[in-house]
C-alpha cells in the first residue's frame, strides 16, 4: 500500500469540509454570531452597571453562571477523561470520535472558566488572586487545578493534531497560501518518519494518562468548592465522585449529540457509524445508572436521617422546585435509562434523544444543587427585603449562558475548518497496522 498516495486521497476527500462553506452553515454561523453579540452587550451591561443587572442577591449569591461553570468544566474534564481512555486503549472504532472528544474538551475548558469570571464582583482585581494568594482557599486550589488542566489539555490536543497538520502541509497544494503557511508552522517539522512517529506516540500516550489524572484531580477540587462548606445541601462526602460521574454522563451525552450533528450535516456516515452510537449508548446507560444511583444516595440519606436543616432543604425542593426536581432527577435519569436499556429501543435517533434529555436533566440537577441550597440556609431567611429572598435569572444571565453555548458551537465549526474532524493520521495508522497484520500473522482479523 502506498501511504503517500493514500494521504493525498484523504486530503482530497476531506478538503471540501475545510474549504467549502455551505449556505446552511453560513446561516448557522450568522445566528451564532448574533447570539454572541447580544451576549457581549449583556456582558458590558453587567460590567458597567454591576451585578445589579443579574438576579443574584444576598441570599442566592451564585446563580446560573456558576451552574454553567460547573457544567462546562465538568464537560471538559469528562472529555479529557474519555479521550485519555480512548487513546490509552487501542480500540478500533475510536479514531472517528477521538477528535470530536478532544475538541469538546478544550473548548469547554476555555468557555467554562469565563462563567466563573462573570460571578466575580471585581474583575479589575482579578490579579489579586496571584498577588495575595491564600493556599488554604479551595478557590486557589481550583485555579491551580484548572490552569494545569487547561495547559495539559492544550498540549494533548496539539499533540494529536500534529500528524494531520503534517499531512495537510504536504498535500494541500491547491489551498490558499495562508493556509499552507499555517499548516507548515503548526506541523513543527513533523515528517512522519518511524522514529518521529514512535516518539510522538509515546508522548501522546503519556499525556493521555496525565490528562486522566488531571481530570480527576480538577473535578474533585471543583466539587469541593461546594462540599467543603457547611451548607446543608452541599456538605456531602460523595460530592466529588458524584460530580465525576455526573460530568462523564454529560460528557458522553454531548459527544453523542455532536456525533449526530456532524454525521448529519457533513455526511460522514462512512466514518461515524451506527456502532459508535451503540457503544456510546451503552456507556451512557451505565453512566445514567451510576448517576441515578448517586443522586438517589445523596437525597435518600438526607431524607431518611431527616436532620432539621436537611428536611428544610428537601421541603424547598419538593414545594417550590417540585417540577424541576421531577424533571431533573426522575425524567432526566429514567428516560435515558428506559430508552437505552432495551435493545429494540436503541437507534441513532433515540440514543441522541436520550442524550439531549440527559443533558437538560443534568443542567437542571446542577441548578437544584446550587440555588435551593442557598435559598435554605441554616438560619431561615427573615428580615430581608422581599426581592432578596428568591432567585430568578434575568435576561442578562440567560443571554450570557446562551452565548457560552453559541461560542462553543461556533468555535467547534471553526476548528473543523482548520483540520478534518476525522483524524487522517488515525486512518492511516489503522490501515498500516492492518496491512502489517495481514502480511505477518492473521489475515482474518481485518473486516
Amino acid at each position, binding site marked *: 500500500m502506498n501511504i503517500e498516495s493514500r494521504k493525498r486521497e484523504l486530503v482530497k476527500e476531506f478538503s471540501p469540509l475545510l474549504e467549502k462553506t455551505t449556505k446552511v452553515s453560513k446561516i448557522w454561523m450568522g445566528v451564532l454570531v448574533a447570539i454572541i453579540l447580544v451576549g457581549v452587550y449583556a456582558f458590558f451591561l453587567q460590567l458597567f*452597571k*454591576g*451585578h*445589579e443587572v*443579574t438576579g*443574584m*442577591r*444576598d*441570599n442566592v*449569591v*451564585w446563580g446560573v453562571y456558576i451552574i454553567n461553570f460547573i457544567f462546562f468544566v465538568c464537560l471538559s474534564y469528562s472529555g479529557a477523561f474519555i479521550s485519555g481512555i480512548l487513546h490509552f486503549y487501542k480500540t478500533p472504532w475510536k479514531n472517528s470520535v477521538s477528535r470530536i472528544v478532544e475538541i469538546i474538551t478544550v473548548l469547554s475548558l476555555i468557555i467554562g472558566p469565563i462563567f466563573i469570571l462573570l*460571578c*466575580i*464582583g*471585581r474583575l479589575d*482585581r*482579578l490579579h*489579586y*488572586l496571584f*498577588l*495575595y*494568594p*491564600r493556599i*488554604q*482557599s*479551595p*478557590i*486557589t486550589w481550583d*485555579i491551580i487545578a484548572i490552569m494545569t488542566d487547561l495547559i495539559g489539555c492544550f498540549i494533548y490536543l496539539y499533540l494529536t493534531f500534529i500528524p494531520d497538520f503534517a499531512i495537510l502541509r504536504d498535500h494541500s497544494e491547491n489551498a490558499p497560501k495562508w493556509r499552507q503557511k499555517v499548516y507548515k508552522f503548526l506541523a513543527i517539522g513533523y515528517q512522519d518518519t518511524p522514529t518521529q512517529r514512535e516518539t510522538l506516540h509515546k508522548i501522546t500516550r503519556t499525556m493521555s494518562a496525565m490528562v486522566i489524572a488531571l481530570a480527576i484531580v480538577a473535578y474533585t477540587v471543583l466539587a469541593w*468548592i461546594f462540599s*467543603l*462548606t*457547611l*451548607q446543608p445541601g452541599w456538605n456531602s462526602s460523595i460530592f466529588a465522585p458524584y460530580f465525576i460521574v455526573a460530568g462523564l454522563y454529560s460528557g458522553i451525552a454531548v459527544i453523542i449529540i455532536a456525533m449526530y450533528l456532524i454525521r448529519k450535516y457533513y455526511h460522514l456516515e462512512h466514518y461515524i457509524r451506527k456502532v459508535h452510537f451503540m457503544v456510546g449508548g451503552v456507556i451512557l446507560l451505565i453512566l445514567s445508572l451510576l448517576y441515578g444511583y448517586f443522586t438517589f444516595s445523596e437525597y435518600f440519606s438526607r431524607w431518611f436521617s431527616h436532620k432539621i436543616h436537611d428536611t428544610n432543604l428537601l421541603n424547598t425542593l419538593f414545594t417550590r422546585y417540585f417540577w424541576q426536581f421531577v424533571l431533573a432527577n426522575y425524567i432526566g435519569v429514567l428516560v435515558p435509562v428506559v430508552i437505552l436499556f432495551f435493545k429494540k429501543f436503541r437507534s441513532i435517533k433515540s440514543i441522541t434523544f436520550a442524550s439531549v434529555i440527559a443533558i437538560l436533566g443534568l443542567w437542571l440537577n446542577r441548578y437544584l444543587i446550587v440555588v435551593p441550597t*442557598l435559598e435554605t*440556609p*441554616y*438560619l*431561615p*431567611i*427573615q*428580615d*430581608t*427585603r*422581599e426581592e432578596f429572598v428568591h432567585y430568578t435569572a434575568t435576561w442578562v444571565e440567560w443571554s450570557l449562558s446562551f452565548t457560552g453555548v453559541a461560542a462553543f458551537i461556533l468555535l467547534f465549526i471553526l476548528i473543523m475548518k482548520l483540520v478534518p474532524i476525522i483524524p487522517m493520521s488515525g486512518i492511516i495508522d489503522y490501515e498500516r497496522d492492518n496491512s502489517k497484520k495481514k502480511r505477518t500473522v492473521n489475515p482474518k482479523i481485518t473486516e
Partner: protein
Amino acid sequence: MEDKKTEKGSTNRRNFLKLGLMSSVTAVAGASIISNLVSDEETKPSGEKMRLLTPDGKIVEVDASNVNKYPEALITPEESRKGIPNRKFVMVIDLAKCKNARKCVEGCQKAHNLDYNEEFMKVQLIQDNPEASPYWLPKPCFHCDEPPCVTVCPTGATFKREDNIVLVDNDRCIGCKFCITSCPYSARQFNWGHKDKFDDESQPYSPETSVPAAEGTVMKCDFCPDMLRQGKLPHCASSCPMGVIYFGDKNEDIVTNGEETVRFSKLIEDRGGYRHLEHLGTKPNVYYLPAVNRQFPLERGFNVEEDIIERYKDVPYVQDLKKQGKI
C-alpha cells in the same frame, strides 16, 4: 577508594546544601524586592516637608507623605489586620429583653452609612420547636474563632484578628462571594451595584469602619473597632434602649450594656448562656442568654412598620397571628 567515594558524597551534599541556601536567599531577596516595590508604590515621597512637635518637645521635619492622613480613630487597611492588643472581644445578647425595637439595626445603619434595606444586624423571629414560644433574635456577625469565611477567602480580604474580630478589607476583596456561601449564619452582604455613597471621600476607607463601602465587594458587621479603640461600645449596643446587647473583653472577663457591667463568665454561668448552632464547630464569640422570664410579650415586636412585618411573613407563628387578625 571508599574514602574517595565518601568524600565525593559529602561534597555533593555540601553542594546541595549550598544550592538550597542560595536558592532560599534568592527567594527571600526576591520577596523583599517585591515587597519593596509594593511599599514604594504606596508612599511616594512628595518632596513636601512638614514640621512636627514630638511629645518630648523637639521639632522634627518629616516628609509629608510619611504623615498618616487618617484621623486618629481611623486605622489603615494594613494596620487593621493586627487588632487591638491584649483584647478578646465578646458579645452577649440577652434574648429576654429584646422586643424588636430595631434601634440596634438603625444605629448600625447610621454608623456604617447603610441604606434602609441594608442591615449588618438582622432581627430574626425564631421558634425552636412547635411547643416553644417564639422569640426575637438579634443576629450580628458572630466573629467565630473558626471562621469558615476566612478559610475560604482566596485573597485574604477577610481575616481574623487577635482580638477576636473578623473584618473585611474591601480594598482587597475581589467579590467572589465564596465567603457569603460558606457563612452558616448568613451574616454577609454584597454590594450589587454602584451607589453614590461609595464615592464619599470625606473620610478614607478603613476596614474598621467599613465606610465607604465599594461596589462588587462584601461587607458585614465589624463589631465597630473604631468605637472600641476609643473605649466606647459598638453602635448596636449603645443604641439599644433595653440594654439587650452586652459587649466586653473576655480577657478582663467583663461585659457591659452601658448601664450595668457584669462578669462575663458569671453571666453565662448563671443565665445559661449559649452560642447559636454550636454543633457547627465555628466557635462564635457572640453568646445568647435564653429568652426566659421575658420583659416584653413577643407581640410588642410587631409594633414596627408594615413592610418590616412583611419580612416575617414566612414564619408559621406570624401566619397564625395573621389568621387570628392580631397583626
